[in-house]
């Protein structure tokens, strides 16, 4: 199976025409992953027996025209629980954890008859921007195996980019779908906060976390988002807003004519690589030529996003991660004298350094005497950042800019320097703070590495982002370029 030459629609057509069966497609996907994963290390676990069984059942029932996802393999980030399939969040503390239920998104994919092929690597508990904090393995960039894949959804992004799957789920708390998508030259959507249920997502920063799809193209992304979105009684932050068929507007008639786009000057400022800046300016020209207006706008408090985020996300994480106590599930330290020992030693042995750093920052920010100065201040700055976005989006249909200040960096280059690593998220974090949708898509190259563009929209207006992304794709060829990997393409 060559996923570089296929998309969801072509796979669906082939399955309906019985060019191959869902089981054959699933087997071919496993064969390809086994051939390529020694180089990429995208997967933590493969779901081989259950996936082949599920595919055989789908074949037996037959695939109909109105089941666009039926029989098509999908990969799921390993912080999303999957029943009976080990789910680790890439942490030693959950190394042997087998969930007893499926996350809502997993149930929805199964209802759409997608075949869960396996679980992808991530930064431990999704805390990181390079997938290097995983307790288990180091995923590599699909384009250059000496570079990071980005993070925290590095496994999902590398799996899609290297042609192992056509679609994968990721999660995004501060850029964890968009930045790895950009680093690997694929499309990633962080939906509006509330668009997708997080029931069964291993919680990190609950006021920020969202689940979204990573795919090779915009239309595929839209199709998967429609399948996983919608209200869920199990997640009371999930919105009751109707879920459009996001892909149905993505036709030859799609146009950006008359749209007003804001390009924040802060997004092209200090620290942004010259090639990245030029790719975004060229994309702005493309949109102008297609009849849109691109104005320079300002998000004056953007630079405070990273500080506010690391207080808020770490505070929420320190609370969410209290549940890992070595009692009911997960790692329990041996050689303990009493219950306090179980807590302290299990957590100290089970968590990696970055997770401990975040728990410490969060505990500090919430502790007596520091709460007002840190947590409450950050929550107020969050409001200021939201107001910046509101002001721009009042008279602009969406905002465009880079996803990350640079293309993928070298493995090992930043892992010892937390602040440098944190600053990579300066262009994605504010979008999570404001709960807005953000789409990352290929917009150029810098020294053979992909450069990503980010489109940021109004709440629940993923449709405009997909339309603008689709039109950009129709007028450029960045998304058609694929990495050279093991000669399979």
């Amino acid at each position, binding site marked *: 199976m060559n996923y570089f030459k296929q998309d969801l629609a072509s796979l669906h057509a082939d399955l309906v025409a019985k060019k191959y069966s869902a089981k054959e497609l699933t087997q071919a996907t496993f064969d390809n992953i086994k051939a390529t994963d020694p180089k990429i290390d995208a997967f933590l676990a493969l779901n081989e027996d259950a996936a082949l069984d599920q595919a055989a059942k789908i074949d037996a029932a037959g695939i109909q025209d109105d089941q666009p996802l039926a029989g098509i393999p999908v990969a799921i980030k390993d912080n999303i629980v999957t029943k009976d399939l080990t789910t680790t969040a890439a942490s030693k503390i959950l190394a042997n954890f087998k969930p007893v239920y499926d996350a809502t998104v997993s149930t929805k994919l199964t209802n759409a008859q997608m075949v869960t092929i396996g679980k992808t690597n991530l930064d431990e508990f999704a805390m990181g921007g390079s997938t290097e904090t995983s307790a288990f393995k180091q995923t590599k960039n699909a384009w250059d195996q000496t570079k990071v894949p980005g993070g925290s959804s590095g496994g999902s992004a590398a799996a899609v980019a290297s042609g192992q799957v056509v679609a994968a789920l990721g999660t995004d708390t501060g850029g964890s779908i968009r930045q790895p998508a950009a680093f690997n030259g694929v499309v990633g959507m962080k939906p509006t906060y509330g668009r997708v249920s997080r029931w069964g997502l291993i919680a990190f920063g609950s006021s920020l976390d969202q689940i979204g799809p990573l795919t090779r193209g915009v239309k595929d992304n839209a199709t998967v988002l429609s399948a996983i979105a919608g209200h869920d009684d199990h997640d009371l932050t999930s919105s009751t807003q109707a879920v459009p068929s996001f892909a149905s507007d993505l036709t030859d008639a799609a146009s950006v004519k008359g749209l007003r786009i804001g390009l924040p000057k802060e997004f092209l400022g200090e620290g942004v690589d010259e090639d990245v800046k030029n790719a975004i300016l060229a994309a702005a020209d493309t949109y102008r030529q297609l009849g849109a207006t691109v104005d320079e706008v300002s998000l004056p408090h953007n630079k405070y996003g990273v500080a506010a985020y690391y207080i808020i996300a770490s505070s929420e994480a320190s609370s969410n991660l209290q549940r890992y106590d070595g009692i*009911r599930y997960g790692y329990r330290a041996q050689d303990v*004298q009493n219950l306090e020992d179980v807590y302290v*030693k299990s957590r100290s042995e089970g968590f990696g350094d970055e997770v401990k750093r975040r728990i*410490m920052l969060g505990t500090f920010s919430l502790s007596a005497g520091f709460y007002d100065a840190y947590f409450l201040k950050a929550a107020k700055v969050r409001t200021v950042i939201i107001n910046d976005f509101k002001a721009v989006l009042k008279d602009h249909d969406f905002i465009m800019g880079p996803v990350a200040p640079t293309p993928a960096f070298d493995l090992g280059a930043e892992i010892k320097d937390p602040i440098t690593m944190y600053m990579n998220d300066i262009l994605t974090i504010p979008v999570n703070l404001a709960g807005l949708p953000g789409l990352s898509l290929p917009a150029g190259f810098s020294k053979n590495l992909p450069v990503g563009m980010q489109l940021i929209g109004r709440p629940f207006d993923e449709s405009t982002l997909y339309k603008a992304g689709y039109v950009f794709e129709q007028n450029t060829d960045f998304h058609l370029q694929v990495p050279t990997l093991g000669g399979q393409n």
Partner: protein
Amino acid sequence: MANRINRDQVQHVASLAKLEFTDAQLDAFTPQLDDIIGLFETLSEVDTDGVEATSSVSDQLNVMREDVADNWGQSQALLKNAPDAARGFVKVPAIIDESEDN
């Protein structure tokens, strides 16, 4: 080092978070946390007088639902994930420290 947080304070925060660090880890963590807290302090440049704090960006507020149990009766399955279990219960070490006489 600007000394926004010192080694003793890091120890204190660790005890609140039920974490413990070796001396070498404390040596490494203390300056890192100090630098990051320095980054946090840049927020003081933002005028937030009269600004409300944001704790949620959800469009759903105070959602009510019936308290109905579902997906229950799975104690055996749940116990499979427990590090130690006996007779249908999670087993833990003694709560009272038996290592010393008080």
